[in-house]
């Protein structure tokens, strides 16, 4: 999946390869969500093009896109009393003609298990907490691209999937995103927590004012200078004491 776009995003060029997890980081208003919308075809770039599996995105029909690419937008409002299971099953929509098969039910169950939301299966969606909703929505998009298509790769675009989650679920969400990446899916995750990005991403793209200010492995991108310049915030970057990745510690000047 490749892109080149302008204005809100200027001169952004990005390649999302099958099998890798790319984290997009940057301050508020940097253009992260715009990038996500351009990538999934919600917004037309004024210049530049998005390509997916060797074809321009514009040449894909909606249903073709939906079979290989799932998107988790930032916040979803659903006020109708579907059960969590029914919400996840809706992820199978692009693959189903008529009624869902037993196979689709299995996938929905497995997806709920993957996001540690099995216990919510029969709960009504409007009664769930913010974090529970987020995990059910994640299960829905996982169910959508659960199986590899006949040809080409799958892509998963997650826009702040951890914003409402507690510590443990932030990590389990990114862990399941990475499992998907290891299974051959190109995964793009927009996150605010630099340490989450450092631990789970193969590559990090740092955006500021619609431009890419740094891109590469976590160790290449998450430097003290780059973070200070992008987020306007002094930090210390050290080695993670247990993992092979950088650790970012904010050091605000006044306390």
């Amino acid at each position: 999946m490749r892109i080149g776009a302008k204005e809100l995003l200027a001169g952004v060029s990005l390649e999302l390869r099958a099998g890798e997890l790319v984290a997009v980081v940057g301050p508020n208003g940097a253009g992260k969500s715009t990038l996500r919308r351009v990538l999934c075809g919600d917004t037309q770039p004024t210049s530049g093009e998005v390509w997916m599996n060797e074809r321009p995105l514009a040449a894909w029909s909606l249903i073709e896109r939906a079979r290989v690419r799932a998107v988790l937008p930032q916040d979803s409002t659903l006020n109708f009393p579907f059960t969590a299971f029914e919400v996840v099953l809706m992820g199978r929509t692009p693959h189903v003609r008529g009624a869902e098969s037993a196979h689709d039910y299995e996938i929905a169950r497995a997806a709920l298990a993957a996001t540690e939301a099995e216990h919510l299966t029969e709960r009504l969606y409007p009664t769930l907490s913010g974090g529970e909703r987020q995990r059910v929505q994640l299960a829905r998009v996982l169910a959508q691209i659960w199986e590899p298509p006949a040809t080409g790769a799958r892509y998963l675009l997650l826009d702040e999937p951890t914003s409402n989650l507690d510590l443990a679920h932030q990590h389990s969400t990114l862990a399941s995103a990475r499992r998907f990446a290891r299974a051959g899916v190109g995964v793009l995750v927009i996150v605010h927590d630099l340490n989450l990005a450092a631990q789970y991403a193969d590559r990090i793209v740092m955006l500021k004012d619609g431009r890419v200010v740094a891109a590469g492995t976590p160790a290449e991108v998450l430097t003290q200078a780059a973070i200070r310049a992008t987020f306007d915030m002094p930090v210390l970057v050290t080695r993670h004491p247990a993992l092979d990745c950088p650790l970012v510690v904010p050091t605000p000047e006044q306390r």
Partner: protein
Amino acid sequence: MVSATARIFPGLKIKSSHARARLVLVGLVVLLGVLVLLAVDKGAVEISLAQCLAIIGHKLGLTLPWPFTAQQAATLIDIRLPRVLLGVLVGAGLGVSGAAMQGLFRNPLADPSLVGISAGAALAATLVIIVGDVVSFHLPPLVQLCALPIAAFAGGLLTTVLVYRLATIAGQTVVATLLLAGIAINALAQSFSGLITFYATDTQIRSITFWKLGSLGGATWPSVMVAAPFILAPVLLFPRLARGLNALLLGEAEAGHLGIDIERVKRVTIFLVALTVGAAVAVTGIIAFVGLVVPHLLRLLVGPDHRRLLPDAALLGASLLLGADLVARTIVAPAELPIGVLTALIGAPFFLWLLLHDRKWRVIH
């Protein structure tokens, strides 16, 4: 206390939710069947079911061993059967278009009569009555009959598009705007009707009052024949939109990501709703709240999945309207209440209950 009633037996396993849905469907078919038989049977002139069979058999050239009078035969064939059929058609149309509209607006408060679509259709129909009186001498009766549903459809379509445009900002329907737009459009339609009434003759005023109150009393075979295609086609086509409407409940962007052509779903839904409501209004006037109450009751039973909801809403809508009509024409017999009065009597308190107790679906926020 919605959580308790949101789904009856929510703890049951997924497989059995199919069984429950089937059970509800069968129950609704049986209910409608019973109400049809009752509606044919009861009234100012009592006709037993056996006599009904004998009369229909007689019409088909069969002789059955149950005696009936000529008055019974005339009542059944010319008055009761068209009335029952029209009740089924209009009830089904209102029920299913209420369900579809609530899906489209992603809000359980959307109802054709609340947001002004019925009023818009009725206004257009009123205009046709007045203008029609002036020019109708030159037109064949079939054209006159069709002009009414077509005008009502155009009025309904116009108001649906208007309300949708007004209430939908950046893909989100703002409920306050939706209801305020409904108030404004209802008021506008009223003032125009008032203006027309001011210049209308006594006969025309009677007709206009009829639109406002709603009644199945005007049912004739021609009105059934004219309304049938306009209502039956949408009732049969709506379920094809079910999957798209389901996805739309997740949000417009989300539905798009699931491969749904949301613009097409919206266009077709608006068109079909306008067609159904327009035809219903043209033959019966404004019958409020059927489209609001029916989908709500069904969501409690089978959940919000439109693949179940839409067919069920058609069945329950038909039953509700037949039942209401049965009450309307028997409770003060030989006179009859306007059915619109009756449905509003049931529907308005239900609407209030919804506003006050249904916080879970956040209908007012």
